[in-house]
């Protein structure tokens, strides 16, 4: 078998402060294949965000290792879609989408073309010159998603991008995300609290347990694509997955209380 796109080996992260240490992640090992959509699901405080931030280069690991396969030389390794506030308020919608490309000093023409392409993809071409303060929460997250895809990285990291949205918007954005993803076939690592969201999006769901954060189960979702929320809800196999994951999360939350 060819080498995985993302390889995480025995990764451990300890936060240390004034004589106190907290193990956020303990010996996490995970392989993610090229083009896979993987969701990380776990109770709050299980270290999912820490894992993502380590992969994003925003946090240092303590021990262990991880690697991301570089396909094309010039491509950035990863780009992150942040939680709700990740859109930069002093840049216009266009400026935000072009942000990564500009940071890499790509030729103006390339920047323009790719920005325009992804603005259109997420339906924001009319709002290109507005500032984020004038956008709704859903539109802001579209900007965030367009910015990450426009950067054309090896892998995409998404940290609960839809958590702050209302139900309707969430469904719409999830399906839009799937559409863009189907077209680009990027490898995605996606954090969520929502089991429904994970079932809709994933090829694989990685269940984590809390304190210390460990991988407790990997579930393969092989329901055919394209998927919609209606199909996910109607599928008995998915319902079974839902019940299992729910039971796992309940146990974890109970455990951390006791």
């Amino acid at each position, binding site marked *: 078998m060819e080498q995985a796109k993302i390889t995480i080996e025995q990764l451990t992260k300890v936060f240390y402060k004034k004589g106190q240490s907290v193990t956020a992640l303990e010996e996490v090992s995970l392989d993610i294949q090229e083009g896979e959509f993987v969701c990380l699901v776990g109770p709050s405080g299980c270290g999912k965000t820490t894992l993502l931030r380590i992969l*994003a*280069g*925003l946090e240092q690991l303590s021990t262990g290792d991880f690697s991301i396969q570089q396909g094309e030389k010039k491509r*950035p390794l*990863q*780009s*992150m879609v*942040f*939680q709700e*506030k*990740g859109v*930069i*308020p*002093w*840049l216009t919608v266009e400026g935000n989408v072009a*942000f*990564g490309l500009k*940071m*890499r000093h790509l030729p103006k023409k390339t920047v323009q073309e790719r920005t325009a392409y992804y603005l259109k993809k997420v339906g924001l071409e009319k709002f290109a010159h507005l*500032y*984020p*303060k004038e956008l709704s929460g859903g539109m802001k997250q579209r900007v965030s998603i367009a*910015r990450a895809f426009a*950067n054309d990285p090896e892998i995409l990291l998404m940290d609960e991008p839809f958590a702050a949205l209302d139900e309707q918007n969430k469904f719409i954005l999830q399906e839009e995300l799937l559409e863009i993803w189907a077209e680009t076939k990027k490898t995605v690592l996606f954090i969520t609290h929502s089991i429904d969201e994970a079932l809709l999006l994933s090829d694989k769901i990685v269940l984590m347990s809390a304190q210390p954060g460990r991988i407790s189960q990997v579930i393969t979702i092989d329901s055919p694509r394209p998927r919609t929320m209606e199909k996910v809800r109607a599928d008995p196999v998915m319902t079974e997955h839902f019940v299992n994951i729910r039971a796992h999360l309940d146990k974890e939350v109970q455990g951390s209380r006791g």
Partner: protein
Amino acid sequence: MSQQNHIHDPVRIERQEWKKRQRKNRWKQGLTLLSPLFLLLAWEVLSRTGLIDARFFPPPTDIVSTFLSMMASGTLFDHVGISLFRILCGFLLGVIPAIILGLLMGLYSPIRHFFSPLIMALMPIPTLALLPIILILFGIGEVSKIVTIAGSVFFPVIINTVAGVISIDRIYLDVAENYGADSRQFFFKIALPGSLPVMLEGIQMGQAIALLTIVAAEMMGANSGIGYLIWTSYKAFLLKEMFVGLVLISFFGYLFSLGIRGLQSKLVPWR
């Protein structure tokens, strides 16, 4: 029973409400004009009737006519011109280094730790108290006044710039780092625009201090400018001329404030 007559026409009721609110707003706007007018009128009457000493408080109409004759003779323009020149040069000389050093201090904590004790120690010293030393160093020419203004503008601007950078939400720094921004891009794309709102508050403060400083500096060591005009008129007991100087200071202070407010909406359209 008028309630019942109107109840079938909600638009009409709301329109009357709206008109009432408009009238109230106009009244409030009128009030802001009323207080200065009232003050001037009282001053005029009291001065003319001799209830206050017209030698110390000449009636406003006299001050206006003095202003007009000073304009006509041209001396006023020289004083105003030289003062504005000093303020502008001193302002730029203070603001530009303050912004650059402030951004660096905000972005890089070693630089911040190194410079902040110096700034904290120097800030409480009024630049005017340093005027003798400034005069020794830079002579009695224009440079000494410009340096005095620059020194007093520098501190509020640098402190607000540092605070502005620190107030930038961490997530935008994460975004910049994640998307591969280099240190130049951190400086110009994140720190500078992100700190602008707070920085401009500092510049607004600096502008007011610049005006205070120029008047005092010109009173102490100059032979031209609005401050000089106020001081020599006072010493020669030409109080009408002195009041003209005071009114000019008030006018320019107001004008600069408006200018910086305008700059604010131009530079920070995203707020």
